[in-house]
């Protein structure tokens, strides 16, 4: 098996394919307190992220809808799994942590949060053209939590 075949299998791991085929928390969250659109102008893919933040500043629920490639949908699905139950500041730290990890721009860990499951996304690091697919939902979540009205983009 060549290095390229390994990279390919690393990108489309079973967990990624599973989440892209059966995304978790997929759909509209009716009683969301925060929402934002994420747009990848490169491909025109659009995701909408919904979050309900509870009285104590914790994320009670996170949903998303839209269409995208396997990487962007799986990443969004994994994201909703990860941030549900977290305090808003921790969720924001996760957004930063995962973006750092995929772009090698800073510390990819978040103290006190186990991002082990998100390692499934690490394969994308070998595919620079696809990193934005993986970070799209996280940018949208950041925008939602900071009440930004303009859609988040990957640019």
């Amino acid at each position, binding site marked *: 098996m060549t290095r390229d075949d390994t990279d390919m299998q690393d990108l489309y791991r079973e967990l990624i394919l599973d989440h892209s085929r059966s995304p978790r928390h997929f759909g509209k969250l009716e009683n969301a307190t925060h929402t934002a659109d994420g747009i990848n102008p490169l491909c025109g893919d659009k995701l909408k992220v919904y979050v309900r933040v509870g009285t104590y500043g914790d994320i009670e629920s996170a949903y998303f809808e839209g269409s995208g*490639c396997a990487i962007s949908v799986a990443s969004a699905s994994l994201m909703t799994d990860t941030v549900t139950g977290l305090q808003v500041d921790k969720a924001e730290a996760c957004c930063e942590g995962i973006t750092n990890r995929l772009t090698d721009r800073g510390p990819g860990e978040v103290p006190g949060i186990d991002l082990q499951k998100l390692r499934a996304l690490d394969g994308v690091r070998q595919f620079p053209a696809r990193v934005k697919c993986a970070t799209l939902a996280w940018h949208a979540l950041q925008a939602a939590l900071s009440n930004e009205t303009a859609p988040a983009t990957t640019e």
Partner: protein
Amino acid sequence: MSAVAQVASAADWRDDFPVLDQSMHGHSLVYLDSAASAQQPAAVIDAVARYQREDHANVHRGVYTLSHRATEAYEGARDKIVDFINANSRNEIVLTSGTTESINLIAQSFCRPRLRAGDKILITHLEHHANIVPWQMVCGQTGAELVVAPINDRGEVELEKMLDLIDDRTFLIAVAHVSNALGTVCPVREIVEHAKAHGIPVVVDGAQGVPHLDIDVQELGCDFYAFSGHKMFGPTGTGVLYGREALLEDMPPWQGGGDMILEVSFDKTIYNELPYKFEAGTPNISGVIGLGAAIDYLQAIGMQRIAAYEHELHDYMVGELRKVEGIRLIGEAREKASVQSFLLGDIHSHDLGTILDHQGVAIRTGHHCAMPAMQRFGISGTSRASVALYNNRDDIDRLVVALEKAKEVFA
């Protein structure tokens, strides 16, 4: 010429393009994205390099020999363009940065001063964003209306329905010669004929037309024809606006600066003559010289010969793609050129693009700067393979093998 001889010469053409001689992720490179940007033959690369090494100076300015040589080479390229599309004269060839600038020039210089609220600009549903947004902008500036002619499920412009949309407020018609997303060859000749009967000027977006068709603007009868150098094996950042001289003559400059003037004082500026009044500032001299070399290259082979070869290869590609289980072709016009868009099962085009890339096959994925055309088919994007004279049947076979591999990954 026999089919065998044509195949042999196609193999020679491939050798003219140095970039194709490389391996990509352990496979020989198969480049099927010429509709986005065509590769350059060594003749173009060498012409640009030779100019940079031996002849570079600013054009139209110096009295010294080097500047004269640069001007000769630059203006020589303009003459080649005149011949290439059979324009009437050099005055009709405005050099721009590409199709996009050419169309914006028409919108701002021809339309904006003339358009009145309620006037209409008629385009079609398959246009590239470069033939949509400049018209939207000038409509916004003037209160004119953008009217869109429908396309059918095959991706063809429905001529009768388009002509029905023409009325006494139709100011201008703008249409692609060949759709970059769908490959459709549009009925430009018929559109021009009807438009002329109503005295309506026609703009043809020829970005995808020039590389694949033998263009004769006088025979076509259009008023403007816009195209890009890099789609026809020339350098990026070069383009052409052909316009009928009488129309260009009446249009004001759209950018001010050096080179577009005859005389400047603080009271008054006298603009330069055609085509220079539309060419403010130092132009892309080396790029235009490269474009001239690309025209030499194409003319040495012959546009009709290229078109025939590509047509045969396109038909082979479509035939082979049809055999791939789970494929849905987008764009099945009866008259097409070079391009085939498709979807494969429920695999997103970006995932497909990545998997193909890792087998050395470069295709375009996404909306192809034609979002409304994608919306017409209820999709967000496609995968698109486009062929040029340097492609061959092996490339198509490699594409099909790579598609089968993608299905395995997503099985």
